[in-house]
C-alpha cells in the first residue's frame, strides 16, 4: 500500500467545483482547481466531513465490495457498536447478530466486546504514574491522524492501545483458528464500518505494521440486505453471539467510552472542529483537571459516521434502548491487567508537518514574509471563489507556487479595471479622427 492511501476520494465527473467541501475541511486539504475539487493527500485525515457536505455526492469513501468474502473459507463479521443504533426497537441485538449470519458470515464477534477490553486496559493505564495526561483516546482514527498532522505536542498524550476493531479482529481470528482448527490465512475478518477513516486505518495503519482486518464494509452497503434477512428472524430469541454488556454497546455514541471508564475526570468531545478547539486548549495548558479525553471526529460519535444510514440523533435514541437491554457487566471480574501489554502499539507515530512552508527555516521565513504581504492585499472575505478555503490559504498557495493572485476574483477585477484604464489612455490612437 502506498504511504498515502485514503478511503475518501473524489468522483470527478460528479464534482461541480462548488466551495462546500473546501470550507468544511478541518486540515484545509481540499482545493478547487480548474473547476474540480482536488484532495491534498498529505493533509487528508479521512474524517469524511466532505462526504457529508457535498451536495452532488462527488465525495465518497472507498470500502471493500462484499464479494471479497468469497476469498476466505471462514468468514467473521465484526459489527461496530454503531450498527445497533441503525435499527428501531423491533430489532434486538440478538436479531441483528443473527441477521449477520444470514448474510453469509460464519461467525460474528462484537467489536463492543473488544471495546470493553480496551476500556479495561485504559483503566490500568490511567492509574500508572508515567503517562502523560490528559490521555487522549485513540479509538477514532481520524482524530489520531489529526494529532499526527496538526498537534505534534499531543502525540505523547495518545492512548497507545489498539482500537477495539483491531482487538476484536485478533481475538476473533485466534478463537476460530484454535477452536475450528482452520489456518489463520483462510479466515476472513470483516469490519462493518460507520466511517471511512477505519478503512484507511486498515489499509494504511499508523500503529502497527499490518492490520488483522481483511476487509471493511460500509454500514450503508449492507443495511437493506440486513433488514431483509432480519425480517425472517423471530423477534424474541436468544443468541449465543451476544457477548458485550451495556458499556461496550454504549461505546457507539459520544460519551460511551468515558462512561465505560467510570471516571469523573473524563471529557467527551465530538465533531472534528470541536475536537480541534479542545486540542488547542490542551496544547496551551488551558484544560485543567481532565485525565482522559474521548475525542470523536463525527457529531454524536460513531453514530454520526458518514457511512451510517439513520440520522445520528435517531440512532442515539435507538442505541439508548439497546444499552438498556444489555446487561451491566461487572468489570472487577475482568482481568486484562496481566495481558494488556499485548494491546499496546508496537510502533510509535511520527509527526507529519504538513503546514510547513519550507524545510529550511530561513526560506520558510522569507515565504512567510511574502505570504503576509499577499494576504494583506486580499479582500479578507474568505469567499472561496478562488478555490482555496480562505484568503490566507490562497496567499499560502501562491507562496507555494500553486496558485496566482488573479485566482482571486477581486484581484482579477482590479487588474481588468487597470487594463481598461490603460486602454482608455490609448483611445486617441485607435479612434478614427472625427471630421466635420
Amino acid at each position, binding site marked *: 500500500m502506498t504511504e498515502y492511501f485514503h478511503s475518501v476520494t473524489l468522483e470527478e465527473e460528479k464534482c461541480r467545483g462548488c466551495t462546500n467541501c473546501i470550507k468544511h475541511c478541518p486540515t484545509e486539504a481540499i482545493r478547487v482547481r480548474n473547476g474540480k475539487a482536488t484532495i491534498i493527500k498529505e493533509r487528508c485525515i479521512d474524517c469524511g466531513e466532505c462526504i457529508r457536505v457535498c451536495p452532488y455526492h462527488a465525495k465518497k469513501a472507498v470500502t471493500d465490495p462484499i464479494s471479497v468474502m468469497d476469498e476466505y473459507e471462514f468468514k467473521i463479521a465484526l459489527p461496530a457498536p454503531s450498527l445497533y443504533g441503525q435499527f428501531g426497537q423491533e430489532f434486538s441485538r440478538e436479531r441483528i447478530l443473527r441477521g449477520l449470519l444470514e448474510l453469509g458470515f460464519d461467525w460474528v464477534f462484537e467489536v463492543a466486546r473488544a471495546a470493553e477490553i480496551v476500556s479495561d486496559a485504559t483503566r490500568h493505564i490511567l492509574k500508572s504514574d508515567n503517562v502523560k495526561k490528559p490521555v487522549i483516546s485513540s479509538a477514532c482514527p481520524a482524530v489520531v491522524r489529526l494529532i499526527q498532522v496538526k498537534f*505534534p*505536542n499531543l502525540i505523547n498524550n495518545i492512548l497507545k492501545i489498539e482500537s477495539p476493531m483491531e482487538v476484536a479482529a485478533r481475538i476473533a481470528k485466534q478463537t476460530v483458528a484454535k477452536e475450528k482448527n482452520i489456518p489463520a490465512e483462510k479466515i476472513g475478518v470483516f469490519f462493518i464500518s460507520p466511517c471511512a477513516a477505519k478503512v484507511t486505518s486498515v489499509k494504511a495503519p499508523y500503529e502497527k505494521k499490518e492490520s488483522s482486518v481483511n476487509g471493511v464494509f460500509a454500514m450503508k452497503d449492507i443495511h437493506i440486505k440486513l433488514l431483509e434477512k432480519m425480517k425472517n428472524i423471530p423477534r424474541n430469541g436468544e443468541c449465543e453471539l451476544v457477548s458485550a454488556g451495556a458499556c461496550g454497546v454504549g461505546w457507539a455514541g459520544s460519551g460511551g467510552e468515558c462512561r465505560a471508564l467510570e471516571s469523573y475526570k473524563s471529557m467527551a468531545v465530538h465533531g472534528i472542529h470541536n475536537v480541534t478547539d479542545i486540542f*488547542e486548549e490542551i*496544547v*496551551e*495548558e*488551558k484544560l*485543567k483537571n481532565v485525565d482522559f479525553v474521548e475525542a470523536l471526529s463525527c457529531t454524536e460519535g460513531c453514530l454520526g459516521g458518514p457511512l451510517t444510514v439513520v440520522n445520528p440523533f435517531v440512532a442515539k435514541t435507538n442505541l439508548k434502548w439497546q444499552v438498556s437491554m444489555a446487561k451491566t457487566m461487572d468489570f472487577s471480574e475482568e482481568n486484562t491487567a496481566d495481558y494488556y501489554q499485548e494491546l499496546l502499539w508496537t510502533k510509535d507515530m511520527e*509527526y507529519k*508537518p504538513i*503546514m*510547513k*512552508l*519550507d*524545510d529550511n*527555516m*530561513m526560506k*520558510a*521565513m*522569507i515565504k*512567510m*514574509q511574502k505570504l*503576509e504581504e499577499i494576504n494583506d492585499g486580499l479582500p479578507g472575505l474568505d469567499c472561496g471563489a478562488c478555490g482555496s478555503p480562505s484568503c490566507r490559504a490562497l496567499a*499560502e498557495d501562491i507562496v507555494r507556487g500553486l496558485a496566482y493572485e488573479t485566482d482571486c476574483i477581486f484581484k482579477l477585477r482590479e487588474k481588468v479595471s487597470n487594463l481598461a484604464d490603460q486602454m482608455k489612455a490609448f483611445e486617441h490612437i485607435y479612434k478614427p479622427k472625427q471630421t466635420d
Partner: protein
Amino acid sequence: MSSLSLIKKEYDIPANDFSRAGEASSNVRKLLTQLGVNPAIIKRTSIAMYEAELNVVIHGNGGKARVEIFEDRIEIFVYDEGPGIEDIELAMKEGYSTAPDFIREMGFGAGMGLSNIKKNSDRFVIESEPGKGTRVYITIYLIEEGQ
C-alpha cells in the same frame, strides 16, 4: 544575533474578554508551525504568550502584543496601560495572586502566570510602575543548540 526582524505582527488584547484571550498566542502558534519550528519550542512560546495575554485581560484593562520573528528567535512584547504592579518580586512568586474572586472561580488567577512565563522563555523582562502600566518582554530562541 541578527537585528532585522523578518516578520512583524501586532495584536489587540481586549479588556475583560476571556473568550478572546489566547487569540494572539494561538495565531503565533500557527505562524511558528508553518515555519517548521520544533514543536516543543512552539509549545513554550504559546504558553508564555498566552499567560502574558491573560494578564493583560485580567489585570491590565486591555493592551497590545507585538511579535517580531528573527532568523534565530521570536521576541514578544506585551504591554498595557493598566494599574501596574507594586511589588514585582512578590508578583513573580508562585501562587501570589491579586485576581478577584470571580476570576478565580472561573479557574484563572492561580498566581502562576508570571512564573510560568519565566519558566517557558529564554529571556524575560518585566517593567511596571503603579499607575503606569506593565510591559513584558519575552525572547525565545527558535533553534535548539545542536540543531
